[in-house]
Every structure is written in C-alpha cells, then in structure tokens.
C-alpha cells in the first residue's frame, strides 16, 4: 500500500519535473504534430517525380506521343537527350530512367512489323527503379495501343482486377504517418526515461531518495509511469487529431485495443531506456549508447523496409530483442486490418515479456550503479 503511495508521489514529482522542462515539452509537441506531418509528406518510397530522359532517334509523331505520355505525378517531364549524353548523365545519377526509341520505330510498326523499345534503368535507385520501370512500361504500352487503334487494343486475354485492401490508393502517407508515431514513441521513451535516471544520478538526487524508505522498483516504475503516461497520451492525441483529423488517414481498428498495445509498448521502451541508463556513467555516454540503439531499432522494425526482406537470422534476432517489430505488426494489424485481440495477442505478449525482462535487469543493475 505504502509502495503504491510512494510510486504515486514519485510519479507526481516526475510529472512536475517534466512540466518544468520547457524544451522537452516543445520537442514532444513538435514531434507529434509538425514532424509527423513533415515526415509523412517527405521522402518516401512512392514513385513520384521520377527523373526520366528520352533518347528519341525516331523523331516521329508516335515517338512524340510516347514522350508526352510520360507524365506527372509519377514522372518529371522527360528531357530529350543524345545517346552519349544519356549514358553520361545516367552514370552521374541525373536520370533514373532513360527511354530509348530507335530510328524507324513508327515506320516499322505501321508496316505491321515489330519494333523494340529499350528502357535503361539506373538500378542503383533500388527503391524506385523497379516500380518506376513497371509504371513507365504500362504508360508507354497503353499509349502505343491507343495509337494503334481500338482493333488492336484487346491484347490481354484476362481481365485483372486489383483490390488493394486497407489502403485502396496505396497512399504512402497512411503508412508513414502511423510508423512515424511509433518511431516518436521509441525515441522519446528511450531518451526521457533514460535521461531522467542519469540526471538524478548526476545531481545526486537518486541517492537522496534511496536513503528514504523507498525501494528501487518504486523509483523505476514511477519514471516509466510518468513519462509513459505523457507519451502515451501525446501519441493517442496525435493519432486522433493529427493523423486522422488533419491528415485524413482513416483509423479503422479498435481504439481501446490499440491503446492497450501502445501502453505495453511504452512500458517496454521506458524500461529499455532505464536499462541503457544503468549501463552508462554519464549523459555523454548515454547519448553514445542510445543513438545506435534508436537507429537500429527503427530501421529494423519493419517500419522502413519489409521484415521479409531481411535474412532469417537477422529477423529472428531482432524479433527476439527488440519490441519495435512486434509493435509495428501489432499496429498494422489493429489500425489497418482491424485485427482483433485474438490475432494480435502474441505480439502484445512478446512486448510485455520484453518489458518484464528489461525491468528485472534494471532492478538488478540498480545497486551496482549506485555504488559506482
């Protein structure tokens, strides 16, 4: 009973401390509002404004129509190039795609013969070149079919209907906005909980508290509760007001289920932050430690590139030590696919288990840390 009261008293103290930290409050506000919006609209893997060059050695009506068919928003307006200039420019990385139309292209086709188009792809643009080439090919072939006239149009013998579930227009913003939320929670919880412990050690206040009838787990839990509560609240508000309200991303799943999962995730990240803090001697070392952890956790969470693309050993290792991939698949399940508890409970259990392990390690390290 007294233990709960102590946690409550210390949590109030943590909240008061956070309330005085103006810079941190501004940062939290920024990352959950402007930053979510900025990142969702910035760099993405969407094919957009792709740079295209055209080597038109045919200079015919058809070749002009083909060139005109390469249009925004997917493509930047194509630039006419000589073959030599094209090779040079592609080497210098100025064009991702160069379409080469050979001399006599239109003439050969009108004569009923065959003709060949070549698309040179800068395959070092791995996130855009593949899909970009597919779309460009489609656009060009559609244009040629239209030019050839309706009688030749029906070349395909199967009518394919694509149904994109959960994101009908495959808008990347739907994805990045939610993943950015997860990323914010990861970064802020690690830094907030970790630095609050280090700050207390550097100022000697933790020693002071431990002389009182307070047990280490009460201190650890109060830090996780206070910071976790703030970050969880900010995240939910951001999801409802910024992501759903302002950016118009539909949030279809069960909100209570998502809040529960997010709560577990916040607890896990808070514990890991504390754990890192017990490994560092001072703020500088904590910074050196936490930055690689943040980068690796984010990049290997499935929020950036698909988990399936990783080698099996790495995927297994990451799923064993990092709560982030579990939360990403939890969040995708609940928010996009409207999955229920029965579907996502294993991910939630995994995150909870990691939180428990981290908290136990923190408490085990506490004494060591204090004697240092």
């Amino acid at each position: 009973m007294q233990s709960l009261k102590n946690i409550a008293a210390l949590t109030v103290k943590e909240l008061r401390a956070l309330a005085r930290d103006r810079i941190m409050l501004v940062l939290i506000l920024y990352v959950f509002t402007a930053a979510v919006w900025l990142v969702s609209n910035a760099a993405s893997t969407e094919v957009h404004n792709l740079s295209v060059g055209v080597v038109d050695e045919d200079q015919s009506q058809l070749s002009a129509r083909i060139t005109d068919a390469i249009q925004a928003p997917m493509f930047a307006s194509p630039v006419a190039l000589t073959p030599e200039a094209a090779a040079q420019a592609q080497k210098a990385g100025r064009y991702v795609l160069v379409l080469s139309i050979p001399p006599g292209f239109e003439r050969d086709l009108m004569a009923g013969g065959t003709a060949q188009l070549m698309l040179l792809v800068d395959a070092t643009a791995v996130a855009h070149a593949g899909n970009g080439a597919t779309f460009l090919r489609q656009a060009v072939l559609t244009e040629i079919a239209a030019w050839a006239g309706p009688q030749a149009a029906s070349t395909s013998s199967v009518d394919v209907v694509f149904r994109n579930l959960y994101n009908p227009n495959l808008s990347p913003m739907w994805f990045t906005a939610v993943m950015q939320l997860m990323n914010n929670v990861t970064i802020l919880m690690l830094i907030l909980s970790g630095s609050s412990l280090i700050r207390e050690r550097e100022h000697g206040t933790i020693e002071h508290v431990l002389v009182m009838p307070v047990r280490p787990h009460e201190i650890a839990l109060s830090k996780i509760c206070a910071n976790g509560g703030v970050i969880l609240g900010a995240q939910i508000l951001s999801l409802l007001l910024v992501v759903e309200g302002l950016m118009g991303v539909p949030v279809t799943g069960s909100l209570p289920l998502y809040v529960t999962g997010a709560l577990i995730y916040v607890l896990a990240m808070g514990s890991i932050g504390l754990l890192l803090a017990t490994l560092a001697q001072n703020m500088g070392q904590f910074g050196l430690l936490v930055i690689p952890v943040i980068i690796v956790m984010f990049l290997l969470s499935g929020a950036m590139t698909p988990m399936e693309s990783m080698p099996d050993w790495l995927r297994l290792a990451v799923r064993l030590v990092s709560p982030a991939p579990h939360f990403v698949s939890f969040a995708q399940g609940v928010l996009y696919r409207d999955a229920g508890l029965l579907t996502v409970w294993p991910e939630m259990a995994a995150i909870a288990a990691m939180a428990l392990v981290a908290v136990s390690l923190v408490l085990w390290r506490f004494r060591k840390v204090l004697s240092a």
Partner: protein
Amino acid sequence: MGPVARLTGVTHRYGAVAALQDVTLDIPAGCMAGLIGPDGVGKSTLMALVAGVRQLQAGQVMVLGGDMGRAPVRRATAPRIAYMPQGLGRNLYPTLTVRENLDFFGLLFGQDRAERDARIAMLLKATGLDPFPDRPAGKLSGGMKQKLSLCSALIHDPDLLILDEPTTGVDPLSRGQFWDLIDHVRAQRPGMSVLTATAYMEEADRFDWLAAMDAGRVIASGTPQDLRQKGGGKTLEAAFINLLPADRRGDPAPLILPPRPDSGDAVPAIEARHLTMRFGDFTAVDDVSFTIPQGEIFGFLGSNGCGKSTTMKMLTGLLTPTQGETELFGEHMTSGDMQSRLRIGYMSQGFSLYGELTVRQNLTLHARLYAIPPADRAPRIAEVLRDFDLQAEADALPESLPLGIRQRLQLAVAVLHRPRILILDEPTSGVDPVARDVFWRKLIGLSRDDGVTIFISTHFMNEAERCDRISLMHAGKVLEVGAPAEIVARHRTDTLEAAFIEVLAHEMGDAARPLGSEGIAPVPTQNPARLAALIRTRAYAWRETLELMRDPIRLFFALAGPVILFITMGFGISFDVDRLSFGVLDQDQSAESRGLAEGFTAIRQFAEGAPLAGPQELAARMRQGDLSLALEIPDGFGKALAQGEAPEISVWVDGAMPFRAETARGYALGVIQRAAKDRAVAAGASTQDAVSFELRFLFNQAFKSANAMVPSILMLILMLIPAIMAAISVVREKETGTIANFRSTPVTRPEFLIGKQLPYIAIAWGGFWVLAALGRGLFGVPFTGQIWAFGAVALIYVTASTGFGQLMSSFTATQVAAVFATAIIAIIPTVNFSGLIVPTSTLALPGKLIGEAFPGAWFQQVSVGSFVKGYGWQDLVFPALVLAGFALTYLGLAILGLRKQER
C-alpha cells in the same frame, strides 16, 4: 615595484547576477597575494579576468603592464602567466599519467624533448611526485593532484602564478605542504608574483597581502594584520564577519556547545563494527569501527576521497558493506530495512534536492515518502519552514537561492520526519561563515534540545572543534578518535590542526617528508618559435589519442559502432521484395487456373502458399497479415478462356505497407501477362509482340538492393559517427574543465581544433577501409571503381564530417547536447535528401538544395559510383573539391565559433 595587476572599475555580470561590481584594486607584485571570502563572492571571476581566460565586460585590467582587454597584449602576456582553475585537479587529464600530463603542458609551451625531460624531472622531484610518474592523474590523492596541477602551472617559469582555491578539500598536512612548496618556489624565483584564493581563513594568515571580498566587492585589503585590525577580530574569520555590512553579520553571540546530558546506559545510536568497502581492487573503507552514543555530535574529518562519504553511505543503507555490520539503536541494519530508514535523516555532499520542484513541493514529496499521515503533513511542513526561516522562500525554486539558504533547506528536509539520527556529508562546504554559524546553531539545538544524534563530516578545523567527538580518516582508515581537547592533549600540540598533521605525518611516513629540499633550478628555455605551432597541434592530437584509447565506451563507439551499424543496416534496409506470402482461392480447379497459380510460385518473389478454402478464409488470413497477395480465380475461368472470352480474376493485395503492395502488384501483373502470352503462343500466335519492351538494369544487373544500399549506408555511417565523436571531444573539455588549458596557454584555435580532429580523421578513415572491405566481402557488392581514388575522397569526406562535429561542438555546452544536436542535424538531411532512399534527381528543388548543402549527398554519388558505376579519377575530382570546400568551411566556422576567452 608597481602592482602585478591593476583593476579599474571592473564589473562583471552573468545574466542578471553581478559577480563583480565596480572593483578597483591593485594587487602587489613579488609577493603572495590572496583573495578571501566564501563561495560566490566573485573571487574566481576576478582571477579569471586577471589570467585573461574570461572576457572583460567593463573596466580595465592591466596585468604585468599590459592591457588584458586587447587580444595582441593577451597573446604576448599569456606565456608569462600560469592559471590553475578551481576544483581538485580540474585542469588535469585523469586518464593520462603524471608524466604524460606534464609532457602535454610542456608541449603547449613549445618545449622540446630535452627541455621537457629536464623540467619534469626537476618538478617531480621538488614536489615528491617522482616515485609515481606512471600513475594516472585520476588515481592520485587530492593532495597529489594539487601538486601535479602546480607542476603543470610551473612548467614554463611563469612570472604570475594564479591559483584558484588550490587547497579546498585537501587534508591539512597536504595543505601545509602545498603552501611550503609555493614558498620554496618563490624563494627560488623571487620575481614571481602569486595570486591565490582560499576558503580556509586560517590559511590566509600566512599570505603577504589579502583582499576580503563580499558580494562582488572588495571590502578590505592589506596585510593579514591590517585586516585583523580593521575588522577587530582575534581571527581572520572573526575580522571578516565584522567587516561585513551590519545587517549581514548574523548573531553576535558566540557559538557555545552546551555539555551533553549523560545518556547513561542507553543503547548507542550508531554502532559500526569492522566496516569495509571494496570497489573492485580498490579498498575505499578499511575496517572502520566506532560507537556513537545518543545525542552526540560526532565529527568526521578527512580529505576528499578518504572514504568519509562511503562510510556515511554504508550507515544510511545506501551501500551494503563488503564486510562488517552496523547497528542502529541496537538493531541490526540491513539494506532493505525500511523501518531503520525512518530513523535517519541524510544530507549528501552537494545539493541533492529536486531543482525542478519548489521548496514546498520538495518538502511535500519528502513528507509523503516518509509516510507522514496526510493530516499532519501541512502543519509539519509549516513548522519546519518556520523553524528554518524558509517561509519567504517556500514557493521559490531551490536553484534561485543562495548556497547558504539551500543548505538550510536541505537540513530542513532531512529533519522533516523527526529522525533520531542525522547523517550530514560536508553540509557547510563553500558556505559563508555567517551562514555556517546559523547552520551550527541549528545543529546544536537539534542535538541538545531534541537529543538527535548527529554524524557530520567536514574539512573545516574550527567546525571540528565544535563537535563532541571527532575522528580523523585517511585513505580508508580511521586514524584518531576522541574529544577535540583530548586529542590536542594526547599529541601535546597547541591546536587540533597541528595534532592532526602529526597523526597524518606519522601515517604517511616517507610521503610526508618535507618538500622542496631539492632546488627548483632554472632550465634554459629553447625557443623553437616557428615550430611551436606544429608542436602544439601535435600535442593535442597525441593527447586526444591517448585519452580515446583509455576510454572504453568512446573507443567502442568509435571502432565497433560503425561496423555494428553497417552490418545491421546493410542486412536490414533492403528493398528486395522476395518470398511474398501468397495464397490462391481457386474456385475453378481447371488446368488453366492451376497453370496460372503455378506461374506465381515459379518465381522467387512469391512463396508457395496453401490453397484457400473460401472467401472467408481469404479475408481472415489477409486480416491476420498472413498473406501479402491473394489470387482469386472464379468458377468457369478455364471455360471462358477456352471460348476466347476474357474472364475476370481478382488479385487481393495487402496495402498496409504501400511499397511492398506496389511491388507485389508489379510482379503479379508480370506473371499474369506472361501466362497470357504463353497461352497465345500455344494457340499458335506469333512468338513476338509488335512492340517488345526491353528493360536494361544498368550498374546493378541483378537489381539487388544491397548493391546500392550498402555503399549509401557507408556514406551515412561515415557522416554520423565521426561527427558525433568529434563533437564530443571538444565539448568534453568544456564539461570537465580542461578547456581552461586551451584558454590559459599559447595554443591557438586552429591548433586546438586541428589537433583534436586528427585522431578522429584517422579512426574514421581506418573505419572506411573496414566498411569498404565488408561491403565487398560480406555483402558481395561488386567494386568497379578505382580503390585509391575512392579512398582519397573518403579521407576528404571524413575530414568534412569530423569538421561538422567540431562545428556543432562550438555552440553546444554539454556532451549530451552535442550528441543529440549532431545526430539530429546530420541524420535528417543525410537520410532524406542525400540519395539514401530517394534518388537526388527526383527531389524537388528545396530538398535537393538541403541535400547538397551537406557533404553526404556528394559522397553518396562517390560511394555508389565507385562501387558499381566504375567511377575513375575524372568522375571524382568535382565531388572531391566540393567535399574539401565543406571541410574547410566547417573548420573556419568552428574556429570562429570557438571562444578563446570565456564569457
């Protein structure tokens, strides 16, 4: 002889606080001049202004005949001044050995090896440090650190020696030795002037001239006798108090310790038996035992690092002793015992209440944690606020309060729950004499009126005299215990201090031999002025390397960090979409439908999936995220095909991750089109389409993600890690205080920055070769460029990225700010606008400009180009020039941003 320093109308402010107010003062030359006064009266500011390490705000400071407000004069005067900042060994490098520290200072003054060797040998001998040339400075005792600091100050034969509180926290024997040593040096070099400050008034009696300071003003100056006369006090401390304005002199009644009522047979409050505490192989406390009866004021005397604080922490239960045990009121204490904690009030060394909470909030928090019943809380807090005269400050933040009041607040907090024992760790360190008296009156009241047992540590001798009993601790051992008068009688000395010095001298044996018996002979100065700049640059590079090699966490981050990040990111960031989970809902079950489904599983992009039983299963498994793509073939598909109709099929794509969905769609379309064509060919159509569309993947024929991502990740890592390392290296010096050496020696800003940058360039460049080899070997990225050309550009690139870190360090003040600011500012443009994921050619103009304003975008081309595009010298010249421009710009800006003088 004129004054060595003349201050005229000097005023100095930190924000709204005035540290010095219109000070006009002549400091006499050729003698031992001292500033006296408690913490925060402006002593350090005054000395820093005289040393030229702090920027003058108003007024004039003339030192050794030159105007310190003018930069050329400062440059010419600096080599004649030695400045030792406040704090035990704060200008020393703790991981460097005694010799290495002195070597470094010698190099800063451009001394060659022979001269340094001669000077170092002479100084070590004179200070008695000669047996420990290879001991790291951080492992020296407080007194030895001060001697080493002094050696480093004397290494260039200064004409003015400025020592800011050199003896604070040092044991009385070492303190006496230190001043003897100074006297000896002065005897050898009579022309040398010394300006010093001390918080121990009794020490100041041996100085030739004193200036007493209070609240930024000099309230009196002259010889010690003059001051005593002016103040009309028996001791300097009494005189000092009398010189203060009348309203601040405090209670004139002398401080009297009434005799302690006999506690009779009551159990002792504290009984410690054979306490021993070891940290690794270091014994901090060695077999300490004592018994403290209830109501006693027990003093604990000793230098910094002698084990006082560790002993106190064991008594509070903060630390569990390695051996030995403690009983409080006859009850055995264990570390998890919450009941015994209710009996203890603790005040740690330094301020340890929450600065973010107001005075009242701090008290409330403590009341709740000590489980004071809610009804009693408010009255008790009001009572304590009244008792400790804190009512006016109740809603202020502790940080805004003067040190004396803060200490009173800490005591108020410690007694809030009416503990039976108070454990106070150096509660009066740095507090002015008046506030110290107020504090002691409180303590005496608590002991005599309320019967509280007080265990207090101090290094003020006059405070020790006020205790019922005192003990002297040295190097983990208790050397002497008893009532002050008893100890003085036992050693037949006049004062307690003399008694302690005798005990210490006996304990330290040879280390306590009188110093200065060897002469401080002048060593002729060589003058390699032209080479001096190079020597100083090399000195910083050498020292930075040594420090880095001895700091495991930084070294690990610098060496292993890039490799770990490279491997995880290289494997983790992949745009290869393979083994997509795939399922078929075949409601037709014809040869045609099976053929179509097989077309999917035939390519590696789709993993074989179990057939789906019905639409419900399809929907359920899509929902679980089990399927990335599902194919639905309706009944009659085969028949329709055979009849030449175009039947409809559905492809369900999981759109949760748009990039994967988009790619999966492209693959699916390809498979379906190929199947259609195969059927057409089988039906006898021409094998050739009218238009064949050939895709040619340049530079990366297999279209493997790693071939492009790995060289780009190389770029990202070589931006991030070297920048953070370099940023920390400068900010660390600001944080630990060693930046004072840069300010007080002739080293220039470019020498300092370049010297510190060189080791990080070397490490980063070494890392580049490791990463490049891993890219080729582990990730199998082909290398088609010219390796040496690539390496050369990489060298320029890491020069730029370390330069960026140094630029960041010029406007950050703490290591943590440097780490985060550098990471955030470097990562955003490098990840988003440097071609890591989005090709720079497709960026809109603002993004493109942001990317090109950082080195990353330029090196991304170089790295990808050298790996897979066959870049040669001619392709690298332009980016190399741009990168060199970045490196020079960053260095230039960092030089402008770094201040040679503190504000």
